[in-house]
């Protein structure tokens, strides 16, 4: 008679508005490792879950976009700290999800942690590379400043369940956007576990919302949603039909669309492109007037 302890398995749930609900649809789907062994039942999110997540993201937007850049940078850095403490767990999940050796999976986790740190540092620097004063030909102080676009729907890329995910989520939120993230359907568990890290890292509820399910099923209502400002179509890299369909739907309220790039190496230097894709430039004109009693023209 064996005395091996029976594991306590985790019920994987969605992350919406800072809470961990099941899908309102009650649906789940089987998630397996690369060899086909059962790992967990993941919630299969519905259109209603997607809409609830948009509401949560919109509600969180004023607070998160209004927070100081320093504050947002510290929160993202805190995510890295929390992730660092759970490296073993994530290495195991990534190894199972992607069929990697433990060493390679651990390298992915380390790269994901380092990516949070890299983006954390951008919070109070991006305005200095993307904005600035404009020397207009008149008595005006003219200043351009980048601002977050708003609520961004992120269809996370396939094939890189943690590093790829972090590489698309961190650049969206570091500048003050809030996100509705659809995890890679085939490998959602690292994403659902990352939600637990976010929940314990001072990321306000609703800033990142994580859904599991089909990118096609959830992408359609998100791309068509009138209160979503932008969409990252990374998940559609191998499905040009779906990418086109979602881009057409996104045109209805002129969402900013980040088209999918061919599957690349997520360990490469990400550059600033993913941050800049979800920023708006606001330009403010201030009369400088004159010092004399003559006053200024308007």
């Amino acid at each position, binding site marked *: 008679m064996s005395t091996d302890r029976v594991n306590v398995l985790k019920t994987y749930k969605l992350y919406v508005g800072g809470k961990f609900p099941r899908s309102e649809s009650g649906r789940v789907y089987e998630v397996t490792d690369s060899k086909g062994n059962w790992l967990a039942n993941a919630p299969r999110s519905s259109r209603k879950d997607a809409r609830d997540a948009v509401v949560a993201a919109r509600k969180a937007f004023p607070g998160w976009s209004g927070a100081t850049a320093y504050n947002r940078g510290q929160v993202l850095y805190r995510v890295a700290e929390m992730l660092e403490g759970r490296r073993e767990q994530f290495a195991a999940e990534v190894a199972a999800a992607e069929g990697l050796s433990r060493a390679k999976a651990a390298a992915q986790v380390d790269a994901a942690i380092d990516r949070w740190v890299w983006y954390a540092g951008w919070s109070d620097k991006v305005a200095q590379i993307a904005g600035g004063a*404009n020397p*207009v030909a008149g008595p005006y102080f003219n200043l351009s400043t980048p601002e977050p676009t708003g609520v961004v729907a992120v269809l996370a890329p396939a094939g890189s369940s943690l590093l790829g995910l972090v590489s698309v989520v961190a650049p969206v939120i570091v500048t003050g956007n809030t996100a509705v993230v659809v995890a890679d359907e085939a490998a959602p568990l690292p994403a659902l576990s990352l939600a637990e890290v976010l929940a314990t890292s001072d990321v306000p509820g609703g800033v990142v919302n994580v859904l599991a399910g089909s990118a096609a099923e959830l992408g359609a209502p998100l791309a068509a949603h009138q209160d979503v400002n932008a969409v990252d179509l990374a998940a559609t890299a191998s499905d040009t039909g779906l990418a086109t369909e979602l881009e057409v739907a996104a*045109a209805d309220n*002129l969402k900013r669309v980040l088209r999918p790039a061919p599957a690349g190496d997520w360990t490469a230097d990400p550059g600033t492109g993913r941050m800049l894709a979800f920023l708006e*430039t*606001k*330009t*403010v*004109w201030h009369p400088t007037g004159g010092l004399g009693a003559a006053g200024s023209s308007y």
Partner: protein
Amino acid sequence: MTNESTPATGSPAAPSGLFTYAPAPESRAVVDIAPSYGLFVDGEFREAADGGVMPTLSPATEEKLSEVAHAGAADVDAAVRAARTAFTGWSALPGAERAKYLFRIARIVQERSRELAVLETLDNGKPIKESRDADLPLVAAHFFYYAGWADKLDHAGFGPSPRPVGVAAQVIPWNFPLLMLAWKIAPALACGNTVVLKPAETTPLSALFFADICRQAGLPRGVVNILTGDGATGAALVAHDGVDKVAFTGSTAVGKEIARTVAGTSKRLTLELGGKGANIVFDDAPLDQAVEGIVNGVFFNQGQVCCAGSRLLVQESVHDELLTALQRRLRTLRVGDPLDKNTDVGAINSAEQLARITELAESGEAEGAERWSAPCELPSRGYWFAPTLFLGVSQAHRVAREEIFGPVLSVLTFRTPEEAVAKANNTPYGLSAGVWTEKGSRILAVAERLRAGVVWANTFNKFDPTSPFGGYRESGFGREGGRHGLEAYLEH
């Protein structure tokens, strides 16, 4: 009423009780308009392949100014091929050499600015005061500004050696025909792209004169191609497979259609679309200056401006005082002959646009807002609409929600700064806004919370080539002007 020298267009009407001006018309003799124009493709003027032509009218008189070719699919194809062929040489040219062509263009525009201003006023209907003092100086400045970027792109923040995108399809509106051409062509050429540009159906002439400026500047053939035509021409251009980049300025409805057209392609897209700008006046604002800014905000270019301040949000406590001053000021606006140097408000650009403005104004009355115009005699021929206020407008009224693109101002009120911001942002658009207050910290706090691409504090409708311009939300995406304006035309 003494100024009735040209009954066809009418001189600026001097409202009763005000002093009158003698007519001061600018001479038409400085511009020589040919009876017909072809398409400018590969450095030469040619007829449309199917021989199609269309007239262009003076909106102030309905006189036919000229006849231009109506480009079809075959012409689009020829122009895109010419641009593609020219791209190889143009993009390989050292930036310093491209710069010199653009500097030449800027200088020739300055030299010919009187001619071009008169031409623009004839074809568009805008007051000569505006085409002379706003449009043309900004056109030259835009080319001068981007000329200087052509050999400095390595330092623009888009990577060490950014490459041009390729062939740019550019479709522009009728409200600032030559200025919108400059906004499109100057950055595209500076970055090493070649272009096919389609001017608006009702204002093709200044783009065709620009083709002549390209000839004078010695610009290599095919670098700039001009296709005149209508919406179908534009649709064929943006859908053409040989195009790498689409840039459009115009209505939000057409912008959405273009976004659907380019979906699923590798074409890059920037859109500068409609707006419903809020002009917010706080109770501590300098009211006389605010009145001038409100008038400039919504009656500049007959209100046919995407960033017009078409919603006045005035703090309740100064509503009556401000409206009295505003109405007094509107009584002095001179509406009439666009070529008269005294004219403040010219003609509406087309019968179609006049019908749209008229319909929306009628909806304002039907929905219960109070309509007010200063007494003003409008010319008997041409397309005219008197500067108009709607008082007591609610946020639900169509005149508060829809872009009118005409000389119509909707007046709403607010009590607190929070309410002002909420009302200003209560629109699917997000192009412009104005803030009027003497308190500096309030300007900054309000400007920060406005979801609009351009915010003018204690001023309105100011433009500069160094200053990025473009919208949030359904006002489009991408920026024109400044370093930001290079991004749309570079691979990075």
